[in-house]
């Protein structure tokens, strides 16, 4: 069976960015395009993986 694909380029919808709406809050901005320090994210994920923060008996 041949599946027909729509290859037309979708035109972007006009919509205010998340930080302009009340729906979202900004956690961090990269103003220069030089990247983020994600230490907090990595440390949190490693903590979850090791069970850190589990309730102690």
């Amino acid at each position, binding site marked *: 069976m041949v599946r027909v694909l729509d290859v037309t380029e979708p035109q*972007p*919808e006009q*919509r*205010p960015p*998340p930080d302009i709406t009340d729906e979202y809050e900004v*956690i961090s*901005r990269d103003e220069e*395009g030089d990247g983020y320090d*994600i230490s907090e994210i990595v440390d949190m*994920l490693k903590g979850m993986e090791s069970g850190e923060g589990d309730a102690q008996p």
Partner: protein
Amino acid sequence: MCAEERPVYPVYIDLEVLLDVTKHALEELPREVIGFLLGRAYTWNGETYVHVTGSIRGRSIASETSVAFAPDSLAEVAESLRRDHPDKEIVGWYHSHPGYGCFLSPTDITSHKSCFAMPHHVALVVDPVRKEAAFFRVSEGFGYEGVRSAIVRRRV
């Protein structure tokens, strides 16, 4: 500054997506990982931006310094996109550079150019060892540039 005058960042990414991508990168250490970024492109005040609201992990053939999609994994990704994310489109890709920083290698640039032809398509590189992440776009010729972005979270 009123909301209408705020600069439009080329990329907005939901915090939970960055968490998922970083988790993927940590789980596979010391190997690299690869996947797709999902979301939508929008325009505002004449500028195009992408809002990254999801990701799909790619099954890969990876080492500590290279990664590529497994030959049969692209069909799985297409099926996952259709089944689980019908309201989203692919807006870029991510991969990890464990311990050697965030940049695009010549191979990365070639991959981006061949697979992500739209101007708004972005590449996210995560280094879970140096604990860094950065967005890039490929520019004219064989160069690339860092892209301004914002990490956002939906208010509860």
